[in-house]
């Protein structure tokens, strides 16, 4: 993909899984349509994720749109504090991750293969463990625990039969359990 395209992509898309999908599809035999479809599906989770933190964003529309770009799985997960979200953590962690991500992309695009495979460092097992650690404190309320279990079950059932990314979006429907009576 050269140097400029990955940099622009990290600056605008700023979401690892979709970017990795695009580079592997374009690097293989896939065309533009396949790459776009895969990436948009992978990022579709940001609709429910951004809705979950919507009340934290105030001020003019353009400002909300720009600040919203700092929402990424990790900043969002770190900002989740026992049923509420912390705006300063979301934007602070988001900004730190954004700067690291874009500069890391520059390093990767320039020296690339010299760095080795991130899988050798076990990073692909570290992220789900991070999400698990941030999930556990959220499970004290029985209703949250039930919803999480239902969401996990939906995701598990859909992974083998739907395109990557879809399972998370459908699983988010488990939050409709919150429509019932308040605890």
């Amino acid at each position, binding site marked *: 993909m050269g140097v400029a395209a990955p940099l622009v992509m990290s600056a605008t898309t700023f979401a690892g899984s979709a970017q990795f999908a695009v580079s592997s599809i*374009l690097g293989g035999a896939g065309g533009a349509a396949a790459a776009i479809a895969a990436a948009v599906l992978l990022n579709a989770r940001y609709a429910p994720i951004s809705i979950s933190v*919507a*009340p934290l964003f105030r001020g003019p529309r353009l400002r909300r749109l720009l600040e919203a770009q700092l929402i990424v799985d990790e900043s969002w997960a770190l900002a989740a504090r026992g049923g509420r979200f912390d705006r300063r953590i979301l934007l602070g962690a988001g900004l730190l991750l954004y700067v690291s991500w874009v500069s890391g992309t520059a390093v990767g695009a320039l020296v690339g293969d010299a760095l080795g495979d991130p899988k050798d460092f*076990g990073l692909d097992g570290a992220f789900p463990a991070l999400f698990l650690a*941030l999930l556990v404190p959220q499970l004290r309320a029985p209703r949250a625990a039930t919803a*999480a279990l239902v*969401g*996990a079950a939906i995701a598990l059932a859909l992974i083998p039969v739907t395109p990557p990314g879809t399972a998370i979006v459908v699983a*988010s429907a488990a939050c409709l359990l919150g429509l019932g009576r308040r605890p």
Partner: protein
Amino acid sequence: MSTVWLVVLVVGLATVALKATGPVLLGGRELPARVAGVVGLLAPVLLAALVVTQTVGGDYELVLDARLAGVGAGAAAIAARAPLPAVVVVAALATALARLIA
């Protein structure tokens, strides 16, 4: 325009719009109680779904590999009340080790 730039542009615009969904459409005000009840469950539900997809997710298949060892070790660290950075390091080490052995 080359294929690469077309994809970068379209995916970039789509992602900006997806991330802006909540803040632009619903931001700047308190949510009604019923909506807040639903939105409040989004965090545990999405976190649980992320744990599942990132641990065993594959391309149209469930994949049981070194990630499972990493998350298992991470879960043990969580149960032992280890701090967050320690959980992440333990999980990464266990994943790398399991991959080395396998």
